């Protein structure tokens, strides 16, 4: 049980660190697109580790003590993880596309290939 708790704490630590970096990046970056970088990548990665801590705990208790109710926690967390990874990336794409269509220019950009594309 001790090893299990240690692993969970390490995962929670890593997850909190990356979620914090994501929140910090939101304030620090200059424009919408760079902020999305911080908001999607860091929070997805951080949340993956937070969920993994839950999975480790519940799978461990399920395996050691045979508590059947823990399996619900374990499997639902895995499904939440998959849903999070797919929807977070898709959502970021939708926000970025909407921002560019409504005329938000990337700050300090070197090139903008999308500029010349006509909206269909």
């Amino acid at each position, binding site marked *: 049980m001790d090893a299990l708790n240690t692993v969970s704490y390490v995962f929670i630590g890593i997850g909190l660190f*990356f979620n914090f*970096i994501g929140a*910090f*990046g939101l304030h*620090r*970056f*200059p*424009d919408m*697109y*760079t902020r*999305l*970088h*911080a908001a*999607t*990548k*860091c929070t*997805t*990665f951080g949340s993956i580790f937070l969920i993994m801590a839950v999975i480790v705990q519940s799978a461990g208790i399920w395996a050691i003590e045979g508590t*059947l*109710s*823990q*399996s*619900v926690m374990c*499997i*639902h967390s895995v*499904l939440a993880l998959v849903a999070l*990874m*797919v929807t*977070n*990336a*898709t959502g*970021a*794409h939708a926000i*970025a*596309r909407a921002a*560019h269509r409504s005329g938000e220019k*990337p*700050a*300090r*950009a*070197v*090139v*903008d*290939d*999308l*500029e010349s*594309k006509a909206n269909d």
Partner: protein
Amino acid sequence: MRFLITTVVAYLVYLLLTIGSGTVFLWSTAELIIGAVFAVVVGALLRNRFIGKDLRMLNPRRWFTFLVYLFPFFFAMAKANIDVAYRVITGRINPAIVKINPKLKNDLSLTILANSITLTPGTLSVDVDQKTNELYVHWINIDPKVLKDMPRDYHPICDSFPDWARRIAE
């Protein structure tokens, strides 16, 4: 055929969600029966929506490739996060939006690639040209070498991911 596949998938998802409810293996009898009924209803309603024109994703080799792909993907994702953390702390950015043509043919592979690009090193997919299947990618710290020629080289952006997407979904 489509009805059968949709029903089986719906039933599997239902079983996955109700693990641990009883004593027949891991499920209770009531859950098994109700799940079967709902799976048949879902299969009858959605058989033309759930599966597209072709059945190539049924090939188990593609699913196996997808599982193998998760490992280089997770590694790239970890790298991306350390990179973004570094840029958050130092504030060194040099952003641009570039157009790449990964030469993928169908929607599913393009979706996989676009999601992978969003979650990996310093890049975020912004828009897609549906006629030519070209992606517009926002790059947080651009490599000046890419700017020289117009059909941009996609290797610095997404490495070998287009090949993986092609193997999984084409």
